[in-house]
């Protein structure tokens, strides 16, 4: 499967009377965008705002972040199973408005979380302070059940990203990157002397506000399966996960999965990157056993010599991570784990809820319990009082001057467990 990613670099986003990309600027016709995303009677109102890097703007609470993309050539469309039909994606050509992002906001549950600061201390922790954000502020009708609310807002984000992505369909990209993975047997033959590496991609799948979808299907219902890495670049995996802002994978991060990108960087040089195995993180222990057995079996079955395993979340997923690690290492296949830590505010507690001596190679995205003070911002998009009831914050965390004292777990993408960010932690 061969996919060309055409990157159109976006330096600025502005409202205009026509939606188009010109000289690196994304112009948006707000009315048309609103028309495109509206129509869901579950939402009372939708508004659009723009937040640019360096502006004194805070977005809170953030639900999801999505990258505008469009399919230019090849089968299917972006977000199969949601916006497009369930054709297999990941081949042909896709254009990306690189540097632009759709951000959805709205209080889905009372304790919502997720902060993006466009400047100041907090901006260092979130990757989305560097993108030009088109923020969709969604307000539900009264008494809308949480499931429905989450789904409605999720769809608004996907629609907006596709609508904006279409503006780049006929634009000549600034950069084209080609990714290719052959059918397994051919791929193995292509670099016979290089070690075969697989990526074990664990998806959050515990239930309400903790879900991930693959081609429209709820990941808790899958058994682990094999996918071509390029499928994710077309939005085959999307987030319905609204809890734990720091280490959940927003849809944007699934679409730009950095482990897949960086494995491709060494593909054909040091390793033979043969594909991805997606698996889930269920609550029922028998499901965990089944999924980890199945994952280890698949890793062995396709003949991998080594694997990177990434998890999503805390607690329950730590058990899946350890089970996957143990069962894969027991087959003589080398692993590296990617996680983050909950070592307490003083950093002195044990970081994970489970451990194994086989996990001797671990990359950490940092301690999510670290305290941070976010300075006041001139403008707040969303609900600033949400800071008081934010997970990782606490009553009184929103100060009178508008500053927020909280743990970095409130910041969207701060401790990405697929290694999207630069944060790490060291033992002192």
């Amino acid at each position, binding site marked *: 499967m061969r996919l060309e990613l055409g990157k159109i670099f976006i330096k600025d986003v502005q409202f205009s009377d026509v939606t188009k990309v010109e000289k690196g600027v994304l112009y948006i016709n707000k009315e048309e965008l609103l028309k495109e995303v509206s129509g869901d009677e579950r939402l009372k109102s939708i508004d659009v705002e723009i937040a640019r890097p360096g502006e004194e703007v805070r977005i809170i609470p953030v639900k999801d972040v999505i990258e505008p993309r469009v399919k230019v050539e090849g089968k299917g469309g972006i977000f199969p199973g949601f916006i497009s039909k369930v054709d297999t994606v990941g081949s042909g050509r896709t254009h990306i408005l690189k540097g632009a992002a759709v951000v959805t906001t709205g209080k889905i549950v009372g304790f919502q979380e997720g902060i993006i600061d466009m400047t100041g201390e907090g901006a260092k922790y979130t990757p989305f302070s560097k993108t030009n954000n088109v923020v969709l502020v969604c307000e539900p009708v009264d008494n809308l059940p949480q499931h429905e609310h989450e789904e409605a807002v999720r769809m608004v984000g996907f629609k907006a990203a596709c609508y904006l992505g279409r503006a780049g369909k006929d634009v000549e990209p600034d950069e084209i990157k080609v990714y290719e993975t052959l059918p397994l047997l051919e791929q193995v033959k292509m670099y016979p002397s290089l070690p075969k590496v697989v990526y074990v991609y664990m998806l959050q799948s515990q239930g*309400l506000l903790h879900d991930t979808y693959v081609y429209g299907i709820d990941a808790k219902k899958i058994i682990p399966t094999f996918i071509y890495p390029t499928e994710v670049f077309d939005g085959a995996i999307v987030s319905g996960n609204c809890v*734990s802002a720091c280490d959940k994978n927003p849809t944007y991060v699934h679409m730009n999965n950095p482990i897949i990108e960086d494995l491709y960087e060494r593909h054909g040089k040091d390793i033979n990157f043969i594909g991805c195995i997606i698996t889930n993180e269920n*609550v029922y222990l028998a*499901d965990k056993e089944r999924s980890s057995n199945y994952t280890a079996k698949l890793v062995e079955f396709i003949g991998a010599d080594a694997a990177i395993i990434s998890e999503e979340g805390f607690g*329950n997923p730590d*058990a899946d991570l350890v089970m996957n690690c143990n069962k894969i290492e027991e087959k003589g296949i080398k692993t590296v784990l990617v996680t983050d830590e909950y070592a307490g505010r003083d950093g002195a507690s044990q970081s994970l809820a489970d451990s194994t001596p086989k996990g001797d190679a671990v990359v950490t995205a940092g301690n999510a*319990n670290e305290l941070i003070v976010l300075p006041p911002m001139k403008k707040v998009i969303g609900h600033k009082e949400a800071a008081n009831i934010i*997970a990782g914050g606490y009553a009184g965390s929103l100060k009178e001057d508008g500053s927020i004292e909280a743990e970095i777990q409130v910041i969207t993408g701060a401790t990405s467990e697929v290694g999207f960010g630069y944060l790490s932690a060291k033992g002192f």
Partner: protein
Amino acid sequence: MKLKPVIVTNNPLTKASLETKYEVIFNPDASLLDILITVRDYVHKGHRLLTHPLMGSIKPNQTPYKSVAVSRQCFDEIDLMSINIIEESILKAQQLIKNKKISIYNHRILEDFSLIDFDLIKNALN
């Protein structure tokens, strides 16, 4: 082999919604940690843990609610995985709670926590 569950909970919504279908041990006055300790006692006696005690991304020092399923059947052999998971979960929960106690939330937020806890256990059992 699907084992018949007993649900240990302090969540009124879990009780109300699941008691018609399952055996539910409900203690509204128990803290999250009390629930975990009750579950541990079951595991020590030979019951198996069916669901992960730290399910969900809401940390044990953020929500007051907890629902956990253990097997109704008590086995002669103690299940190692069950014991590992429950003991590690208790340690982790204690650490986080010690670090930063549960905040007092208003009624609306409590309802949300309650709903999520219930939804996760419901999904796990279905």
